């Protein structure tokens, strides 16, 4: 699989979780990439995790957060 396809797959997983109303609550970087911690934005009770591997996905997810922090909207 091409690097772009691997990234796309992980991006879709991230986007799918976010589309379910979760927000990214924490990121644990590790030797295999990054473990994303999500919580339900409404209840904060439900949590889920996703291990992402690719560099582009790790960049994507932090760009989302950085844009949110700086009030910029990524594409």
């Amino acid at each position: 699989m091409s690097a772009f396809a691997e990234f796309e797959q992980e991006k879709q997983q991230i986007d799918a979780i976010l589309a379910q109303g979760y927000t990214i609550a924490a990121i644990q970087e590790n030797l295999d990439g990054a473990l994303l911690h999500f919580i339900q934005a409404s209840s904060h009770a439900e949590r889920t995790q996703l291990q992402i591997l690719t560099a582009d996905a790790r960049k994507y997810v932090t760009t989302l957060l950085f844009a949110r922090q700086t009030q910029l909207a990524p594409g």
Partner: protein
Amino acid sequence: MADLSTNLAGIRSPNPFWLASAPPTNTGYQVQRAFEAGWGGAVWKTLGDPIINTSSRFAAVSFNGQRVAGFNNIELITDRPLDVNLKEIYETKKRFPNHAIIASLMVEPKQEKWHEIVKRVEDVGVDGLELNFGCPHGMAERGMGAASGQQPDLVEAQTHWAKEVATTPVIVKLTPNITDITVVARHAVRGGADAISMINTINSLAGVDIHTWNTIPHVGGQGAHGGYCGPAVKPIALNMVAECARHADIGVPISGIGGISTWQDVVEFMLMGATGVQVCTAVMHHGFRIVEDMIDGLSNYLDEKGLASVEELIGRSVQKYSNWGDLNLNYQVVARINEDNCINCNKCHIACEDASHQCIDMLTNADGKSVLQVREEDCVGCNLCSIVCPVDGAIDMVAIENDLPPMTWNERQRTIASLNDAYNVEVM
């Protein structure tokens, strides 16, 4: 025509081209001929207690037909008496009052030694002094040159001793044979340096003769490490100049040295913070008259850029040089192959397959012709294909527009830290 004159810490020169302290500035005869050819200044071959040299002193590294890509020497400082040098400096200065003559000095790290030589040299009318804390071979074994230059406290003390009696600007010449050149530069400034110059030569062994097993060069079958210079060292020198230029605690003018061979090299060094440059290897390879092309080229360049003075170049690219952690991770370039220019040599494909990210495909088009095509979505923009491509214009690296916000590694890490700080969860 643009004004090429420079003023480095009070040392005025008709142009930024100085000869570095080295074999081309060994005698008045040579320096005067250099000034006649057009050089704006000369740093006289290092003065100190006269030495004895070996026979067989130089070696060069040629690469793929490019002679003297790098140059190695085991020659020491002047082997002529100080009085002889001073007489020639005096005569040269008298004949060329508007050219810069800087005396390079190297003595033992003792206060009285520095006082003595500074006074004697300034008596003959030099425009400045350059303290040689850089020569890596021979003199270093005697506690001078790079041996001094690798000890920041000794650089500071010796600079201070020279400054105690100096009436002309003091330039401290730094060795690159050190982990972080800015440390020594800062100590030179603390010692009172009016300017710094870099780089001196890099510890080197030019080669080993695989038939005789002798070192290159060798002195009767024995070799010793030398100092490496020439075009091969330019990137190392340019980085060191830039690192010093952008360091807030240094802040003195820089004389750039290291592999400078063309007017374009001079522009690069000045953009990265040098006020002027010093040249040696290119003159040893091609002679004094290379300065004619350097002057013409620089002059035309400044005119084309609409700059009235060469000093307008100084430091203009320094703000573009930062730390890796401050580079934008969302900036993206990709390779594009121009089929009209591509000769289908496949070097880009091989390089990408073997050493990069396997994103250049070998395809056959509708006419049955072989074509190379980049899968842009997989291209990381490493530049390797365009570097190995033998044809100008066959591969362009093209910036890709995206609407992602610029985000550096440092910003990314701060974002993650801030997020995690706010997340009160036991799994963390």
